[in-house]
């Protein structure tokens, strides 16, 4: 382990608060996951205070995406606990899980837009967690307030002029911007990005990262992102978590690390 940093605690010590204490949005303790008797990671523990941007790095197959899916309750963990926005994700009932997810946004490597629907419908569907039902299945039936919110989200990513275009007729960079708009429309408290630039060329990747983090910082949300780009991890992350050998092998402030140290995780 290169350098560790204690998880920030919201607990006051005595009557004096030595520094502003931020609420912890995500708290993971002793998390283990395996697939068909093949252990992916074991005993992963960390905590993320509100507003922090955390990069997760590590070689292929170290379980970075699996870890994110466990955080969102998309796949079950074998053991350990995951508390997100004060919800016990591992033991939560479906309704509680949906309520917590509705305060989160996900941006995936492959954009994951619904290809045959319009850009505006895709963004409106980002509200389904908060406003379930037929009216948010398509922009056609959506209430005016939701359509306006979707247009505002598209405007933030500079694609309001493409609202009526089919999602499968966008470039990779445009698709990822729409995915960001969809993740942001519900004003989430936590944003999760799984290699958001992996399918983009370097220039489009830089644009997407700039946009993603300028919007995330403006909204003051907690961000967890996976990246194989070490420069991105150091530039955009306040903190870096590194997975290696089935363990959390690194937990350090980004400004205390250099590229060479992170490359060591890939050896």
């Amino acid at each position, binding site marked *: 382990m290169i350098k560790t940093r204690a998880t920030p605690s919201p607990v006051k010590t005595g009557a004096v608060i030595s520094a502003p204490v931020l609420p912890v949005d995500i708290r993971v303790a002793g998390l283990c996951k395996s697939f068909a008797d093949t252990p992916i990671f074991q005993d992963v523990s960390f905590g993320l205070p509100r507003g922090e941007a955390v990069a997760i790095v590590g070689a292929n197959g170290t379980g970075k995406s699996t870890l994110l899916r466990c955080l969102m309750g998309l796949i079950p963990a074998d053991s350990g606990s995951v508390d997100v926005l004060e919800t016990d994700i591992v033991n939560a009932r479906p309704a509680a899980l949906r309520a917590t997810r509705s305060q*989160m946004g*996900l941006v*995936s490597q492959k954009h994951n*837009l619904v*290809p045959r629907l319009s850009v505006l419908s895709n963004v409106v569907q980002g509200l*389904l967690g908060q406003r379930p*039902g037929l009216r*948010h299945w398509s922009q056609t039936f959506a209430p005016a307030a939701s359509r306006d919110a979707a247009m505002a989200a598209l405007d933030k990513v500079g694609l309001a002029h493409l609202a009526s275009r089919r999602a499968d007729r966008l470039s990779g960079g445009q698709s990822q911007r729409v995915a960001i708009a969809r993740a942001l429309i519900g004003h989430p408290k936590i944003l999760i990005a799984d290699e958001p630039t992996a399918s983009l060329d370097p220039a489009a990747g830089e644009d997407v990262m700039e946009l993603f983090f300028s919007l995330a910082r403006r909204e003051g949300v907690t961000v967890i992102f996976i990246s194989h780009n070490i420069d991105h991890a150091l530039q955009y992350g306040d903190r870096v978590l590194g997975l290696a050998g089935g363990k959390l092998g690194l937990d350090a402030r980004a400004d205390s690390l250099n590229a060479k140290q992170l490359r060591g995780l890939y050896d």
Partner: protein
Amino acid sequence: MRNNCGAFMTDMTSPARFERPSALAFLGYAGAIVIILWSFAGAGFSVDKVISSPPRFADFIDRAFPPNLEPKVLARLGWKMLETLQIAFAGAVIGVILSVPIALVAARGLIAGNWVNQIVRTTLGFIRAVPDIAWALVFVVAVGLGPFAGMLAIAIDTIGFCGRFYADDMEAADTGPAESLTATGARKLDVVACATIPAAMPAFISTSLFALEKAVRSSTILGLVGAGGIGIELKVGFDLFDYPTAMTVILMIAVVVITIEQFSGWARTKVIGEQR
């Protein structure tokens, strides 16, 4: 391992053109040949009959040609063919519409549990196992002679076909959009409606066009058991040895079925061509 130049060292020996089958594979091939020969014997395959049949077939062709093209007959058969197409379209549309909710509960990992999936899939398997002509006989008993019985037979046959394939299409659809919507806290029903069904839509349309082709082919023979359509004309033509009229019916069926297949193929190419 790399050589001195830094290139990977690999075995350059090309594999044999033919691989000797294992003893188990050899037994499998031998067993398959025995089953084929046994089936031929059971089916009454006779070389003598194959040799003697061309003259009889030529006699039928001689008596059937030229087909009966009298305007009165053509008008009667035309109306019957129209009724056949109506039975096929109405039955296929009802079947396709009802197949969607049935497929939703048949598809594994969508909205219903495993045991519900299994029950619905088994039921769909039963529907498919019963031939359309048998369904027509059942509905003739249930609702009486006529095209309505034929339409119901086509509808249930379409449910058996589309219900299973729609379910398979949804299971095979890209799960990425569904995962992204699930991650926003959307309910299962919303995820299926907004991500899974749109992702499977090209496959749905392709399957529906196959169902329409199948429905048109089936509807042409349902008349044999009194379930409406042009099939009754074919039966009467053969029963009365009116081979020219029977040949007219056969040619009309061939033209309509080939036209529907051509249209279906064109529409399928257009739909799948849109997929990028």
